[in-house]
């Protein structure tokens, strides 16, 4: 059965190639730091399951120290000049969109159909992981189409990939790091501590106060944890169910639906949600790493206010 391990092997090979290309980049004064960082990422993808928990911990620590103290450089492999790109764009026309759109299209089709492919009774693809497998397939399909269309050298794509990875730098690792931090927080009891703090701090003797404490609490807690999924069980067990549902007789479905969306308002405001907020800033080459958050904060506040009113108006009525 083709599962996540095949996808990880592919990622490992790509990162290993990026590490080798980094090491050979004479123009990057920090080439060994970059080679080490991407090389360790490759090791994690290829051999992570054999390193043991402590071994993986040491591997992460080494990556953090490399990026945090030595610092990563930015490789600048030879690429096409802006004029060449304009000329190529005119020559290729809209055909160039085909490989680009192949990635999302194949991913969507794959995530619906891969589950159904089976030899006899045995599924060919791990049914629990079809989206990620489809994403990898979409990438391979796009790569093949790009090869046919563009006829670049094989290393060209890897060098361009390296350039983009270097542009991301530490931001490439942050989403996975934050997911791991969430697990350690859960282990150390951070969620419960925040939940009990919120329940103690806010007087909730009126319906509106309970609703506001729940929606705003969801947003704040989500901003702290970077993830509404971590905040939802704690806030709902601490405020939502005992007060809004049990004490005041609110509808649990309405409360939960709008409560989760209040959490998403928090996600829009926090660097802890790195893959949504910090990674795009790095990908787009923005100087202010918080520029995307700043563009989102007014929307987040307005939607949170409306959510609070909506919940108050709807939750006791149905």
């Amino acid at each position, binding site marked *: 059965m083709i599962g996540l391990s095949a996808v990880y092997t592919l*990622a490992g090979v790509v990162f290993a190639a990026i590490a080798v290309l980094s090491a050979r980049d004479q123009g990057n004064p920090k080439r060994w730091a970059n080679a080490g960082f991407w090389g360790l990422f490759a090791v994690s993808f290829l051999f992570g399951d054999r390193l043991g928990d402590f071994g993986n911990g040491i591997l992460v620590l080494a990556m953090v120290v490399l990026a945090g103290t030595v610092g990563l450089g930015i490789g600048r492999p030879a690429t096409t000049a802006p004029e060449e790109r304009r000329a190529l764009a005119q020559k290729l026309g*809209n055909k160039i969109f085909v490989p680009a759109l192949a990635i999302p299209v194949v991913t969507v089709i794959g995530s619906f159909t891969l589950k159904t492919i089976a030899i006899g009774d045995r599924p060919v693809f791990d049914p629990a992981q079809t989206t990620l497998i489809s994403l990898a397939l979409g990438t391979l399909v796009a790569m093949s189409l790009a090869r046919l269309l563009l006829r*670049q050298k094989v290393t060209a794509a890897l060098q361009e990939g390296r350039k983009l990875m270097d542009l991301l730098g530490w931001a490439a690792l942050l989403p996975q790091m934050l997911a791991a931090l969430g697990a350690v927080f859960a282990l150390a009891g951070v969620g419960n501590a925040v939940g009990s703090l919120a329940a103690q701090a806010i007087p909730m003797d009126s319906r509106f106060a309970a609703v506001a404490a729940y929606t705003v609490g969801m947003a704040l807690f989500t901003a702290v944890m970077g993830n509404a999924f971590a905040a939802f069980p704690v806030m709902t067990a601490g405020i939502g169910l005992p007060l809004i549902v049990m004490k005041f007789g609110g509808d*649990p479905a309405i409360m939960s639906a709008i409560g989760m969306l209040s959490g998403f308002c928090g996600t829009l405001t926090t660097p802890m949600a*790195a893959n949504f907020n910090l990674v795009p800033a790095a990908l787009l080459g923005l100087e202010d790493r918080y520029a995307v958050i700043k563009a989102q904060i007014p929307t987040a506040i307005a939607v949170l206010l409306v959510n609070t009113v909506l919940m108050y108006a709807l939750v006791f009525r149905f």
Partner: protein
Amino acid sequence: MLPLLGVAVVVLGFAARINPLLVVMSAAIVSGLAGGLDLTGVLSAFGKAFNENRYVSVTWLVLPVIGALERAGLQERARDVIVGIRAASVFSILCSYLLIRQVAVAVGLTSLGGQATMVRPLIAPMAEAAAEAKLGPIGGPLRERIRAEAAAAENVGLFFGEDIFVAIGSILLIKGFLEQNGVLVEPLQLSVWAIPTAIVAFAVHAARLFLVERRLSRMIGAPVHEKARA
């Protein structure tokens, strides 16, 4: 309350703009130690979770293809297409993208967008091209603002569309959690009540994009150095 020290480390570290990887690692160590683990225990717990969450980083697999296409003029072509459309503006491009993204996600087509696959190579260059078609060359801060708005439209569309789809992770999480607490709800009951907020979020964000567009329109004819500052 001691494990909350880890949260304090995160808040202070991010505010001081220290390298986020160092901040996260320190927060994990502080929280773990305060929660009763020893240093080996913290590193093992962190390493285990890091290894289990490798799927988060699989997204980067798309970057070599995106890079190869950009090398051959993908961003330039996206710009050319926009320059050919008279009515194109930052507002019309980002608002359409927001709407399409939100509707697609609401019917379960979550993978159709993305910061690496859509925003960087296509949507952001299109929005920039539309601004430049009206204003001429634009300066750094304005360019930053337009790019940031493109990323924001992607996030807002995704977040406030996904809960309308019944089989999305957050809906299943809510259903599972309520069930554990003895409350039975159908996914459809939950996704129906995500619709009012979805409409509000679209209206609010579209209105804000309209304000951005109005600020840009006021700059038509303004000297280049003002466009650079704005």
